[in-house]
């Protein structure tokens, strides 16, 4: 199929999509007039039932906790799948690739990291880690939770890399430890659910004491616990993913000077 034909096919398809979308849209309630029974019902009960003032966290880790288990395992599977895909290639050096990889930007010199970037990154590592930890442990009160906190925690590791300390980055993110932390976070979530089953309650019921003051650090029972476990899982998964990708960049860079002969042919 030529690009031209492809574009025509796309035009026909998108016309169909626009027609169906507008048709579907005609049946929606107007913007700002949400009539759904589920959301308002949760708003009415959540604070009283769970003692969590962050209702989004209450939805994520209590009312739809089962859904979130599945979601967390999507992240777990993606991180595992990624290291499988990339690892197989690393040991595959005896199979010559069909064509040697072409580095399109070979002529470009990599500018050295400036000291301003290094300093800013170093200065931000501590505050970022603290904010990430705070977010992961305060799901019950604020717009936060394990997912956001975990990503911010992982960012502090990326800042470490950005500050030019790639050796420190590797030393502080040993794959075995991260794998264990990730498994602990994901498995811990499932185990909290099973602990409820062991007491004769439905899977993932909130069986811990809810505390007296809604939104306090000791309130909301399993919501805060699950959020913390999710934070560990997300942080280690993202550090693992970043580490894998960074390692690939380093591999390509190391290989760079070798195909000198191929360079002459490039325009």
């Amino acid at each position: 199929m030529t690009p031209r034909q492809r574009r025509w096919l796309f035009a026909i398809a998108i016309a169909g999509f626009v027609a169906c979308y507008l048709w579907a849209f005609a049946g929606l309630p107007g913007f700002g007039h949400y009539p759904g029974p589920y959301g308002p019902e949760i708003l009415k009960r959540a604070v009283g039932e769970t003692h969590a003032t962050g209702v989004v966290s209450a939805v994520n880790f209590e009312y739809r906790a089962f859904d979130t288990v599945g979601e967390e395992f999507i992240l777990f599977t993606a991180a595992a799948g990624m290291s499988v895909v990339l690892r197989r290639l690393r040991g595959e050096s005896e199979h010559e690739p069909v064509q040697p990889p072409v580095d399109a930007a070979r002529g470009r010199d990599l500018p050295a990291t400036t000291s301003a970037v290094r300093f800013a990154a170093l200065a931000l590592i501590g505050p970022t880690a603290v904010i990430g930890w705070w977010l992961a442990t305060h799901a019950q009160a604020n717009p936060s939770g394990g997912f956001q906190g975990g990503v911010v925690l992982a960012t502090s590791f990326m800042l470490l890399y950005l500050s030019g300390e790639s050796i420190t980055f590797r030393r502080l993110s040993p794959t075995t430890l991260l794998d264990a932390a990730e498994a602990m976070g994901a498995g811990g979530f499932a185990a909290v659910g099973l602990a409820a089953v062991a007491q004769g309650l439905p899977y993932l019921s909130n069986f811990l004491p809810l505390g007296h003051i809604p939104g306090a650090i000791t309130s909301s029972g399993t919501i805060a616990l699950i959020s913390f476990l999710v934070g560990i899982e997300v942080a280690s998964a993202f550090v693992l993913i970043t580490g894998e990708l960074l390692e690939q960049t380093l591999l390509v860079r190391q290989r760079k000077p070798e195909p000198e002969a191929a360079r002459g042919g490039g325009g």
Partner: protein
Amino acid sequence: MTILPFLVVAWIIAVGLYGLVTSRDLIHQIVCLIVVQSSTYVLLLGVGYVTGGVAPYFFDISPHAKAVDPVVQALALTDVVVEAAVTALLLSFAIQAHKRFGTLDPHELAPFKG
């Protein structure tokens, strides 16, 4: 202009799909897929919005205050995480394709299929 959010959703999907169809680079194509998916955030938050509602956090306000729908917000959060995971996996496939075939152009990759 109460239909504006929904028109924005349609526009983001269309722009992303156009990029997917015409792209000549796998990394660019992955970014286009992210654009398509980000339309769902606008749709979810647009559907759950309540005129005059506050964010569903009641730490320092009355729990009976009028708030927007928390369920779609939780779904948007799910959406972001899944997107990040899928993107990471797709990028590693792109790396693998580049190593194997020395190109990221989907048109040149097509003959290697199967």
